[in-house]
C-alpha cells in the first residue's frame, strides 16, 4: 500500500539495487597503498628511498646469514675461506661451552633440570588462567632457589658432588644471576616501597636514602663496591664465595628500582581500600598482606617485567667481576685461535644479539599483553 509521500510519484523502486563494490580508491590494496605509502610527495620520496635501501641491504645480509654461511666445519679453515658468510660452525662447536661454561660434562644434567623446572614454574606463575598461580609463585620464590642452589652447587653426601663456582659459566649463569636478582629483590623492593610510604619518619628516611642512593649510581660501581668492599665489611677470616658479592650487588641494585615501581602501584590504590581494611579492624601487616599488596602488585606486573628485562640485560656487566656469563663466554670462545677469522666476531655477536633479543622481546610482549588485559578489565 503506497504511503502518502509516494502516492503521486510516477515511479517507485520496490527492490533495492545491486550492492556496488566500494570505489577502488577508497578501499583495498590500492587505496591502502595510496594512504600509507604515497600520501604526499615527501611520503613518496621516503617510501622509494627506504625500499631502495632495503633492496640494497637486506638480500646480502640474509645471504650472509643463510646461503653463504658455513654450517659445519671441524675448525676455522673453511670459515676463513668463506669470508662473505657467517660461520655457524663456530657457534655449533662452542654451543656446549656457551651454555654451561666449564661445568663438568657428567653433571650438566643438573643445569638442564634446574632450567626445565624453572621454566615450568615461571609458566605456571605468569600464565593467566592457570589454576593456583599463587602456589606457583610461592614455589618459584621460596622453594625453587633452594632447589636450584642445591642442584647447581651440589650437596655433599647425597650423590651430588660440589661443583666449584669457578667452573660455572655461560647461559645458565646469566639466567641464574637474573633469577637471584629478581627473587631477592622483589621482597626487598616491596619492603622498601612500604617503608617509603610509611608514617614512621626513621623508616621512611632510611628507605628514601637507600633507594635514591642506589638509583643514582651506575650498576658497575655497585658491582665494584660489592666486590671490593663487601669482603672488607665481613669479620676477618670470612671469605665469601666469589659469586656472592656480585649477586648481593645485583639484588640490592634491582631492589631499589623495583621499590619505585611497587610504590607506583601502592599510590595508584584507592584510599578507600586502606580505609575499608582499617574499618574491618585489620592491623597494618594484615591490611598490607590481604588488601593492599595483592592489588598493588597485580597492577605493576608489567612494570616488574620491564625491570626484569633491564636486569637481564644488565647481567652482562657481571663479567667485570670475573663471572663468566653468556656474553663473557662468547668473548672467551673468540679467543680460540683454531677458529680465528674475520667472520667469527660478527657471527658471535649476531648470535648473542639473537639470544638476548628473543628473551627480552618475549618478556616485553608478555608485559604488553598483561597491560592490555588490565585495560580491558578496567573498561568493562
Amino acid at each position: 500500500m503506497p504511503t502518502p509521500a509516494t502516492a503521486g510519484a510516477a515511479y517507485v523502486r520496490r527492490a533495492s539495487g545491486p550492492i556496488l563494490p566500494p570505489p577502488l580508491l577508497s578501499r583495498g590494496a590500492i587505496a591502502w597503498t595510496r594512504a600509507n605509502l604515497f600520501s604526499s610527495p615527501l611520503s613518496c620520496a621516503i617510501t622509494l628511498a627506504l625500499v631502495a635501501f632495503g633492496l640494497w641491504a637486506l638480500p646480502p645480509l640474509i645471504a650472509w646469514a643463510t646461503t653463504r654461511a658455513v654450517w659445519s666445519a671441524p675448525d676455522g679453515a673453511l670459515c676463513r675461506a668463506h669470508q662473505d658468510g657467517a660461520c655457524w660452525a663456530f657457534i655449533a662447536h662452542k654451543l656446549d661451552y656457551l651454555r654451561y661454561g666449564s661445568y663438568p660434562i657428567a653433571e650438566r644434567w643438573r643445569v638442564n633440570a634446574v632450567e626445565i623446572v624453572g621454566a615450568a614454574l615461571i609458566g605456571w606463575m605468569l600464565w593467566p588462567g592457570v589454576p593456583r598461580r599463587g602456589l606457583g609463585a610461592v614455589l618459584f620464590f621460596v622453594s625453587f632457589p633452594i632447589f636450584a642452589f642445591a642442584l647447581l652447587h651440589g650437596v655433599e653426601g647425597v650423590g651430588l658432588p660440589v661443583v666449584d663456582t669457578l667452573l660455572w659459566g655461560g647461559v645458565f649463569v646469566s639466567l641464574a644471576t637474573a633469577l637471584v636478582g629478581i627473587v631477592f629483590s622483589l621482597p626487598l623492593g616491596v619492603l622498601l616501597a612500604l617503608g617509603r610510604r610509611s608514617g614512621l619518619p626513621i623508616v621512611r628516611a632510611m628507605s628514601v636514602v637507600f633507594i635514591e642512593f642506589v638509583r643514582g649510581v651506575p650498576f658497575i660501581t655497585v658491582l665494584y663496591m660489592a666486590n671490593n668492599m663487601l669482603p672488607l665489611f665481613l669479620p676477618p677470616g670470612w671469605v665469601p664465595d666469589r659469586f656472592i658479592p656480585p649477586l648481593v650487588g645485583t639484588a640490592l641494585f634491582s631492589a631499589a628500582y623495583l621499590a619505585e615501581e611497587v610504590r607506583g602501584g601502592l599510590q595508584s590504590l584507592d584510599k578507600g581500600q586502606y580505609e575499608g581494611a582499617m574499618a574491618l579492624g585489620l592491623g597494618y601487616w594484615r591490611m598490607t598482606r590481604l588488601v593492599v599488596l595483592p592489588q598493588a602488585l597485580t597492577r605493576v606486573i608489567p612494570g616488574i617485567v620491564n625491570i626484569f628485562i633491564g636486569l637481564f640485560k644488565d647481567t652482562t656487566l657481571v663479567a667485570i667481576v670475573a663471572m663468566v656469563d653468556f656474553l663473557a663466554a662468547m668473548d672467551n670462545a673468540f679467543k680460540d685461535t683454531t677458529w680465528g677469522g674475520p667472520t667469527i666476531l660478527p657471527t658471535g655477536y649476531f648470535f648473542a644479539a639473537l639470544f638476548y633479543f628473543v628473551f627480552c622481546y618475549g618478556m616485553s610482549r608478555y608485559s604488553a599483553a598483561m597491560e592490555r588485559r588490565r585495560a580491558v578489565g578496567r573498561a568493562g
Partner: protein
Amino acid sequence: MAAQQPSRSSLANDPRVRGIFYQVLLAAALVALVAMGWRNVVANMQARGIPMGFGFWDETAGFNINQSLIDYSALSTYGRAFWVGLLNTLLVGAIGIALATPLGFAVGVARLSPNWILSKVALVYVELMRNTPLLLQLAFWYNAVLKTLPGPRQSLSLGGVVLLNNRGLFLPRPLFGAGSLVVVAALALALLGALAFRWWARRRQALSGERAPVALVALLLVVGLPTLAYFAAGEPIGFSFARPSGFNLSGGLQLYPEFAALTFGLVTYTAGFIAEIVRAGVLSVPKGQSEAAMALGLHRSQTMKLVVVPQALRLIVPPLTSQYLNIVKNSSLAVFIGYPDLVLIFAGTVLNQTHAAVQVMAITMAVYLAISLSVSFALNWFNARDALKGR
C-alpha cells in the same frame, strides 16, 4: 581518662608508642650493623696494609692516559687522574645527550609517521636497541666494526675531510688565529640581536596582530654577521686536516676508537628509549587539541609547534631527564672497551694501585650521586614551573 579505662590504654597498644619503639629498635640495629662493619673494615684494612686516609690523592700516579682534556702525564698525581676521568665521563655524557636527543626525537616522530614503511623501520630500530644489552652493542661497534677497519694508509675517506680507520675518527681541527675573538663576538652579538628581534616581533604581534619574518631575520643575523666579521678580520679561523705521514695520520682532530665506539653505542642505544618517550608523549595529547587547532586555522606545523608539542613536553621531560642520567651512568661501560672514564681510571687503575677501596669507591659513587641529584633538583624546579596549573 586513662585511669577510667586502664585495659585499653596500655602503653604497649598505643600505635604511637609502638611506632617509636620499632623505629628506635631499627635505628639501633642499623647503628650496631654499621659500627660492626666499620670495626671489621678497620681491622681488615690494617691487616692488609691498606692506607686509611686520603693521602694517596697527592701521590704520583705513574700511569699514562691516552685521552685527556687537561694536562696530564705519568708524573701527575692520582688527584689529577681523577679529574681527567671525571672530565672524560662528562665529555661522553654531554656529547651523548646532544646527539641522542635529536636522533631519538627523529625516530619517535618517524614511529608516528603516516608512512607505513617509515614507521615500521623505526619500530624495528627501537625494538632492536631496547631488547639487546648495551654492552653487546658496544662490544660489537668496538671489536667487530672499528677494530676491523683498514689501517691509516687505507682510511675510509669522506672527501678527504673526515677520515675513518682503526686508529679512530679524524675530523678537521679548527685553528684559531689572531682576531678570532672578533668573529666569536660577532656571533654572540648576532644571537643577542636575533633574540631581541624575536621579543620585539612578538610584542608587536600581540599589540597589532602584524607579523614579522623572525626566522629569516634571525638566520640572516646569525649567519651574516659572523661571516662579515670573518672576512673583515682577515680570515683568522682555519682548519687543519688529517694527512698521512709515515704509518699514521698527522693533524686534524683525532677521536680515539674507544671514544667513538662508546659515544656511538650510547647514542644509538639511548635514542631507542627516547623515541618511545617522545611517541608516548605526543600520543598522550588528545586528538581534540589538534583538531581544535586546525579548526582555528593553524597549519599542521603551527599545530604541532603551538599546541601539541608544549603539551607533550610536560610528559616527555621527566623520563627524558632520566634517560640523560642513564647516558651518564651507562658511560661507565667504558670499562669494557678501555675508554678512560671515571670508573676505568679511578675505580679501576687508581683503586688497584692504591688498594684504597673504601675511599675510592666512596668518591666515585659520590660523584655520580651528585650528578644525579643535581639533575633531579633541576628537573623538579622545571616541573614545578611547567606543571599543569589547577583549573
